[in-house]
């Protein structure tokens, strides 16, 4: 069983490289039972969207 600490590493690496089948299965199983890690995954995905939105901000949008 994956620990949450380890799951966060796999989720982070999953944003940078394709995960192996084993990693995907382990992660899917863990996420099915772990609300905290599901939130972690949603929130790190949001960081990526926010970063993309941030660099596109024009001077009119910013204070």
């Amino acid at each position, binding site marked *: 069983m994956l*620990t*949450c*600490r*380890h799951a*966060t*590493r796999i989720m*982070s*690496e999953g*944003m*940078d*490289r394709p995960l192996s089948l084993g990693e995907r299965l382990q992660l899917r199983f863990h996420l099915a039972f*772990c*609300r*905290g*890690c599901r*939130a*972690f995954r*949603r*929130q*790190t995905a*949001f*960081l*990526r*969207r*926010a*970063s*993309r*939105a*941030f*660099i*596109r*901000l*024009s*001077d*009119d*949008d*910013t*204070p």
Partner: protein
Amino acid sequence: MTDTPQAELISSFRPQMLKFARLQLQDDAAAEDVVQEAMESALRGVDRFGGRSALKTWLFTIVRHKVIDALRERGRSVQVSSLERDEADMDEAFEALFRENGHWSPAGRPRAWGDPEEALAQRQFWQVFETCLEVLPARTARVFMMREFLGLETDEICTTLQLSISNCNVILHRARAGLRQCLSTGWFAGEGAPC
């Protein structure tokens, strides 16, 4: 340096960057070198930037990283540590979210953020976002921005900064976990329902 609008924008930050580098390095020639190198590094991918705000954050991250490198070369570890929050401190803060068995502690467990998309439309959110990026250690921030601002692949980032791939992965994880935590307390605090 070429004469595009982006290059001009980069040049417009030059006095501020020089001031910062001089203050930290106490050496005008070294400060000039650092800023010149930073401006050249920043030219790459600069067309992705829409305005001054993100570009400034990106530029100053590179300058900060280069200043720290220059200080390290001189063996000035005291000044380095006062300049930035240590990567080890971040790892410690992350570890504190877990119980000994590696699962989230009740207080450390990430909570739902409500409607984060709504935050993207709010000016104050971007100020918090910028601050969270600025308090990251320079190298951590730079690797994160190369990945998420410029969209570079990790192997390219590792090659450019002469890091191993596993080191790159550790740094990206540290950056994401740190930023997530910073936005949680800085913006989304108290929003989520307890789980």
